[in-house]
């Protein structure tokens, strides 16, 4: 029974990684860049909810909506100001280094505004959860909400991508940006939209993450950001189902190895698995070999 509980907790943590990984993978697939500041968007989302709910004593839902809106704007602005001017740069490293710079900027900005002390975050889910088997199996409300959220997000995202023209434009830009431009697709708009979606998802992930692990610091997004990046690479970067599977696998492996092997070694095991997968299948689980086009 306790194994089942750990599995469900892993699924829940994995769902959060998956939601973050979706943002990484979409941005990579469409804008062909790694937004290393993505994890810090999560942190910004958390502080927005914290500020609105505890300081301004606002409603939780208002807090979440505000976080989504602000993170979306942050994503769009970051892309416009920091990344877009470098899109034609000679080396792809330029934009990567800039993304790391944006990451430090956001972390230090949070440090300046909120200070270094850890703040406690009250869960956005007030529901206590369900218990089964006469109370032996108790699943927390936030766990259930997290898993359900990730499922809903995946379904909505797939419907958006495969059933709307903006989604199709994203796929076209992801596959061949030059050809898409020659067919009149507004690539800038498509990339902006991708950042908007990825950043909105980061806000949702932030709300769920801080509800499950309720301590707030300016660096809280860094580690989940890296893990989600690993999940995206593990699943095959650029692939949406890959990000989902990668996130879930990572979350489950992390929780199970923390429980049954060693809590110090859990992260090492997670990264070790990534290395093994990449050695066997360099494109990740669902990744495709990208052909260079002339």
């Amino acid at each position: 029974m306790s194994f089942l509980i750990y599995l469900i907790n892993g699924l829940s943590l994995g769902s959060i990684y998956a939601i973050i990984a979706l943002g990484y993978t979409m941005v990579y697939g469409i804008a062909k860049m790694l937004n290393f500041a993505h994890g810090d968007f999560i942190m910004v989302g958390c502080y927005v909810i914290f500020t609105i709910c505890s300081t301004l004593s606002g409603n939780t839902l208002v807090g979440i909506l505000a976080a989504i809106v602000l993170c979306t704007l942050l994503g769009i602005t970051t892309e416009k100001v920091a990344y877009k001017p470098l899109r034609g740069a000679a080396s792809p490293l330029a934009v990567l280094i800039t993304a790391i710079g944006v990451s430090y900027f956001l972390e230090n900005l949070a440090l300046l505004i909120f200070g270094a002390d850890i703040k406690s975050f009250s869960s956005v889910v007030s529901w206590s959860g369900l218990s089964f088997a006469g109370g032996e199996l108790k699943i927390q409300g936030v766990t259930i909400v997290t898993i359900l959220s990730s499922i809903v997000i995946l379904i909505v995202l797939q419907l958006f991508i495969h059933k709307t023209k903006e989604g199709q434009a994203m796929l076209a830009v992801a596959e061949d940006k030059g050809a898409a431009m020659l067919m009149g697709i507004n690539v800038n708009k498509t990339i902006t939209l991708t950042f908007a979606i990825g950043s909105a998802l980061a806000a949702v992930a932030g709300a769920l993450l801080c509800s499950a692990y309720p301590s707030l610091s300016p660096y809280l997004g860094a580690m989940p950001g890296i893990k989600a990046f690993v999940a995206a690479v593990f699943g095959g970067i650029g692939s949406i189902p890959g990000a989902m599977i990668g996130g879930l696998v990572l979350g489950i492996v992390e929780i199970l190895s923390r429980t049954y092997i060693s809590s110090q070694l859990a992260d090492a095991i997670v990264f070790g698995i990534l290395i093994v997968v990449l050695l066997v299948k360099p494109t990740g689980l669902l990744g495709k070999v990208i052909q260079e086009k002339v």
Partner: protein
Amino acid sequence: MSLLQVNNLSIAFGGLRAVDDFNLEIEKGELYGLIGPNGAGKTTVFNLLTGVYKPNEGIIRLDGEDITRKNTIEINHAGIARTFQNIRLFHQMSVIDNVKVGLTERFKYSGLEGVLHIGRYHSMEKAMDEEAMKLLKVFDLDMERDTLASNLPYGKQRKLEIARAMATSPKLLLLDEPAAGMNPNETAELMDTIALVRKEFDMTILLIEHDMKLVSGICEKLTVLNFGRVLKQGETKAVLSDLEVIAAYLGG
């Protein structure tokens, strides 16, 4: 006024003058051939016309409008669409979705309407499907609407590329060696398709081909390019007989 007017167009890559002092005029409704040996600069002309490369010199006018400094997206919206020498379909997408990508800019609904499947979403998607199917029928691809583009046989991929370009409702269609890699049967069928497109859509077409026999049958005018420069230009018959004279003279 000609539909396309190109004056003194030049581009150099390092020391190589890939296109040098190139001039071209195409009238509405013409089927015009651009021929020349491999490496003559034909594809480079297409890349200049569509904004992929910026010329060092020269002016490109479409329907009287100067499009020389416009980017590829603006040029497509101005009315030039193209295919590629090496097929560049969206291979991971279905046949109909490839065509719908070409239709994207003509059918408007917001992202929000799309996500929530409300407002203009249904009517616009339906209109796009209908428009796409109409095009696929012309190209005899309607039975394959849900096939992945990469699973189409080669000849049909070429056709789909033309259909996708036509979906952007161009004034001028550029075809870069559409018969490359095709067998004689497929080539003959393709020539019929091109003739059909021209008739059905009243389209002006600039066709690149390195096989002279192929273009002589369907193009009324030709430009012969060699080492980036225009060697001959004019009515097909006159150009071809001139070329024979030159070949006879040079070849002895």
